[in-house]
């Protein structure tokens, strides 16, 4: 598992805002965020939907600041229009941290099966470049994603598998 303190400290260096809707896969990271709220330079904004979270992030990015949005891959099903008619259309760079549900460890959660199967195809169809976050190489994967985000001035995604950000 990636150390929550190290991960959040990386985010703090690159973003002023983090916003999203939770997934169990982010539990540790979100506990860390809540517990260190007062000393962090990263403003955490709660959202009711993933497209709303992308809307909030868009407002932040319109202001010349940086935002990261976290969501379960179910939420990827909620953000199609926020992606295509807002963040991509207006060239608003942001990182989407998406849990990769529906793989082997989720066999008793059939609600994730179908999105799990099409998750990467959906990102490809939407032309969202993505990286799969690994425990050993996460910093370089994040840096690659950030570089692409800046070059394209558009959203990029990081997929988070079971056990990577929470056990």
């Amino acid at each position, binding site marked *: 598992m990636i150390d929550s303190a190290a991960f959040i400290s990386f985010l703090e260096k690159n973003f002023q805002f983090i916003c999203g809707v939770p997934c169990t896969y982010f539990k540790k990271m979100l506990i860390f965020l809540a517990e260190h709220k007062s000393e962090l330079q990263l403003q955490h904004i709660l*959202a009711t939907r993933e497209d709303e*979270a992308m*809307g909030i*992030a868009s*407002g932040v990015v319109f202001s010349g600041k940086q935002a990261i949005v976290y969501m379960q891959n179910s939420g990827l099903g909620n953000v199609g*229009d926020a992606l295509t008619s*807002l963040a991509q259309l*207006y060239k608003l760079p942001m990182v989407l941290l998406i849990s990769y549900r529906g793989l082997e460890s989720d066999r008793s959660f059939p609600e994730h099966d179908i999105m799990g199967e099409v998750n990467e195809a959906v990102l490809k169809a939407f032309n969202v470049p993505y990286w799969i976050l690994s425990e050993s190489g996460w910093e370089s994967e994040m840096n690659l994603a950030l570089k692409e985000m800046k070059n394209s001035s558009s959203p990029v995604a990081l997929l988070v598998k079971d056990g990577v950000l929470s056990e």
Partner: protein
Amino acid sequence: MKGFEVITAMKDYISEKDIIISSNGNISREVYHHLPQPQVYLRGSMGLPVAVGLGLALANPNNRVIVVTGDGNFLMGMGSSVTASFYKPKNLKILILDNKSYFTTGGQQTVSPALNYSKFIDSLNAEYKNSKEASKDQIKEDLSRFLNSNTFAMLHLIIEASKENLENIPWHPENITKEFTGKISKLS
């Protein structure tokens, strides 16, 4: 009153430092043509004007951020007004122009009449809140109170379903972003 008349009446209260977000369709066109430019003119992302306004308000605490949204847009993203009221940024003003219709797509009716806006806004505890029919003799006072309130504010105005024949917004969204971020960098 018509929507564009309300938007035109806002002009007297808007300064260079203000940030406006307009919802897609006619409202964005009217804001583009009648109020100082540039602003965040949404062309798509129906349902998200309040969310985008919240992001702008949180990221620019020293500027007034005014969301101008249609009822269809407001209802589609109703959760966002709950989120906004959870944070209650003092600089965020939400103006709902309610023509009870999806006017832009041909005037189909919305479910807006089922919502008691007054009670809903009241339940969000916005420090400034008002829900009424827009009227020519009160609009100046209503807008000035709403826009000059030093608090999170929500104003719901029932308007006549109608529009002006205005040119489409000539800027591509990428240019909207360029123009707007240029303005923001000069503000700070």
